[in-house]
């Protein structure tokens, strides 16, 4: 089984971190994984995206022409990437700043008010981890518990002080999505 996900949004929203965190967690589970950032002429405040492929077998191409999942953190990303989803695909949308009335009828849309949820935790900076938590619940592609238990290793030394906050954010997003 090969699952491709595109994470997209403004530069600075933590879009690449979301993908990197997922890729690292999947690696710890022993899966094959590739992470490909968009490395176009991107600027802060411009759009950024990355593609994460998680698989039980060797991955041929790190590029996702038909991703199973899309995470869109801003309006331009929503417009651009909802169109690449095959029918029945899931798009997780940051509904705090994205209007989803133009969503295609043949895809599933999960709206997560990340800004509101993040404000409850005192900082907008964790919006990406809230979204990642919600995405992991909805996609069910890796073990959430294994990820939380290894969060220190996954996020790396640089984020050592932020482990608790990130864990809370992931859990808040995870809890937000109902079965």
């Amino acid at each position, binding site marked *: 089984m090969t699952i491709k996900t595109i994470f997209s949004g403004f530069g600075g929203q933590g879009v690449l971190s979301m993908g990197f965190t997922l890729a690292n967690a999947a*690696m710890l589970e022993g899966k094959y994984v*590739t*992470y*490909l950032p968009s490395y176009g002429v991107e600027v802060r405040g411009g759009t950024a995206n990355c593609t994460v492929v998680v698989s039980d077998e060797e991955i041929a191409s*790190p*590029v996702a022409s038909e991703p199973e999942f899309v995470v869109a953190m801003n309006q331009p990303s929503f417009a651009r990437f909802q169109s690449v989803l095959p029918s029945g695909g899931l798009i997780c949308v940051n509904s705090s700043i994205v209007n989803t009335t133009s969503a295609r009828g043949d895809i599933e849309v999960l709206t997560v008010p990340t800004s509101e949820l993040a404000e409850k935790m005192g900082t907008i900076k964790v919006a990406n981890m809230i979204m990642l938590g919600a995405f992991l619940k909805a996609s069910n592609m890796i073990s959430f518990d294994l990820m939380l238990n290894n969060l220190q290793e996954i996020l790396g030394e640089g984020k050592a002080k932020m482990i608790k906050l990130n864990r809370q954010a992931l859990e808040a997003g995870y809890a937000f999505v109902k079965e």
Partner: protein
Amino acid sequence: MKRLMSGNAALGEAAVLAGCTCYFGYPITPQNELTEYMAKRVPEAGGVFIQSESEIAAINMVLGASVAGARAMTSSSSPGMSLKQEGISYLAADELPAVVVDMVRGGPGMGNISPAQSDYFQATRGGGHGDYKTIVLAPGSVQELTEIVPLAFDLADKYRNPVIILGDGMLGQMMEPVSFDNIKPPKEYPKDYILTGAKGRPSRMVRSLLFDTKEEEEHNWKLFRKYQRMEQNEVRYDTFLLDDAEMVVIAYGIGARIAKGAIKRLRQENLKVGMIRPITLWPFPAKIIKEAAQNGAEFFVFEMSAGQMVEDVKLALEGKGRIHFYGRPGGVIPTPIELFRVISRHYYQSRRGKK
């Protein structure tokens, strides 16, 4: 233990572990992460890192470090590689070891920053002026990069010749789990040519200016014999489902990886398709290709260019095999499904033709 690293960063780590003590680079996308990684890592390991003022300066710094006996490396991407060619020619003429990395991007000219394989000719035909060759290694995954880097340094020292690692933007940028456990400490190579100060020994000279035509000719034949030894001893390739293959895909680097995805699908539909993946683009694995032709296979060459390696396949076959070509130049990354469709079309057309 495995770490999630970009090809560029993994290449840098592998180089340091392989004993690279001198790195000189000038920024260009899509290989900047390598320069960035080396800026931090090489000084940590006690080596020398310099961000030079240009690509030309960087390759000449490599020459200087190499002539002093260090394991030296530089890296760039297509337009920058063009600038380095003069220096590579000098390295080859002076018989100095060096590793030069090219993370190829779309061209010609300034081109773009997307992955491409359009510098095959430049890498495999010497690239600069004069009768010389460089060994060209083409890894297909981040893990393989870490295995190829120590090999590149060893081959460079063994033959006293520059070695090119030919990657592409995607290989440099993508992250994959990678382990460095297999990298052994660097071997010692006797270096009786380096300039270390002549106190207590006769002086040495490293130069490529040979006015005497006889002397220059002899030097050329000497280099030529060295290239022959490389051709005899250093051919490397990988095969995939080759034994019963009626159609043999020939692709390298990231292209081979995409092709492998296509071949898996083709096999699911019982199409007998296999692959030969050259790991050394020069010396080119001509013999195995010729053998596959003797078994009656047809060939499908895929490149992310308008067709360069396909000429080496033709040379290998000496007119004795049927070759199909599919290329996507300009930085376009085709999908395995696209390749699946194209290969399957050729497969069925040839099968019909045979009846």
